């Protein structure tokens, strides 16, 4: 067992972990942050995406013992302290960017990272960036629209495609 200290959504956290403890297991099982989902167990679906030191990563494919001292942001840390949705979250809601919602936390975390690096991505850049996030409901059309809307590239009164 190793003791690691992390900052998770602005809160200092200390935990005893095994070598094999995955970040997603710490988040979900020990810290109760169940917004981060496990969809596949084979590192393909991206539902478990979180930010570690500002970078989007698959929390099911990294060991906590390797990231002592890191700053972690999960989907629970994306809304404002007053609960106000981030512009991207708001856009997902307005553009009907989710159906069952299972992949949504990963989508939000992946696209939040994209918009931080590229404030006005093209549709092609958005789609390329989503290669590691699998949605089995929506066909991605409204997810891409949400990212365009959140980056101010879609007229706000345009209704979602149905």
């Amino acid at each position, binding site marked *: 067992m190793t003791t690691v200290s992390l900052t998770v959504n602005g809160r200092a956290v200390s935990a005893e972990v*095994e070598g094999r403890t995955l970040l997603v297991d710490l988040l979900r099982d020990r810290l109760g942050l169940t917004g981060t989902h496990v969809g596949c167990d*084979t*590192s393909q679906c*991206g539902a478990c995406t979180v930010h570690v030191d500002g970078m989007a990563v698959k929390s099911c494919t990294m060991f906590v013992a*390797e990231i002592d001292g890191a700053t972690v942001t999960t989907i629970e840390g994306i809304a404002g302290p007053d609960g106000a949705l981030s512009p991207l979250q708001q856009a997902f809601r307005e553009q009907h960017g989710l159906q069952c919602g299972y992949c949504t936390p990963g989508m939000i975390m992946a696209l939040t990272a994209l918009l931080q690096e590229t404030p006005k991505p093209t549709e092609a850049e958005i789609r390329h960036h989503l*290669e590691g996030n699998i949605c089995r409901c929506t066909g991605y059309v409204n997810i891409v629209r949400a990212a365009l809307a959140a980056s101010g590239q879609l007229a706000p009164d345009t209704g979602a495609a149905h």
Partner: protein
Amino acid sequence: MHAFDLVVPASLEEAVAQLAEEEAQPLAGGQTLIPTLKARLAAPSKLVSLRGIAALRGLAQQGGELVIGAMTTHATVAREARAPFPALAALAGNIGDPMVRNRGTIGGSLANNDPSACYPAAVLATGATVVTSARELAADEFFQGMFTTALEEGEIIRQVRFPIPVGAHYEKFWQPASRFALTGVFVARFDAAVGVAVTGASENGVFRWHAAEAALAEAFAPAAIAALDPPDEPMIADLHGSAEYRAHLAQVLTARAVAAIGA
């Protein structure tokens, strides 16, 4: 996953010492190894993370070479190799997906030598040198077949030294589910020679297509490739494509890469 100890040494010497232990295994970016551990296809007693070794990270231009530390992530290469070696940056920027690129490393990819991985094609086509904790290996000696390299037990890749070509291009035909190369071809043009390496196609792993190299050294044009027979290699045949299909892809992609580099 079976239980194991995980250590994060801060120096290469310490990592080498830790790896001397029975059933210890190095951990680079983990984007292949961790899924493998989850599937219980590997059961090391100890994982030696290389993440704490600062000397293994980063890019530097030294003379005509681009030197990349083994623990440099694909995302960093995609960003920082853009000016000195754009074809390599583009290759790195199309590996896996953004999250994989933020963790996966060039050293990990080379040590694993997946027959469909992208980096081996660039290393082989440019005639790069793989520098390890023990020695320097030419690309031609490093790759020894599917998932097989010249690395000894406990030997760690430190850096890769790429001679920077005059022109280069990596043409990848995506396997749509895995995002690995169904077949991929890296063409590197130097003043006096041309390197052509094919990944994803052969049962022997990444290989140099010598006939194409010779033809392109004569005349650097797509027509020089069209005139050749497909590479004479034992091609992979699976549900994604027959051996003939992969051989054909290798030829078509080589011609496309040459066209992309231009005259």
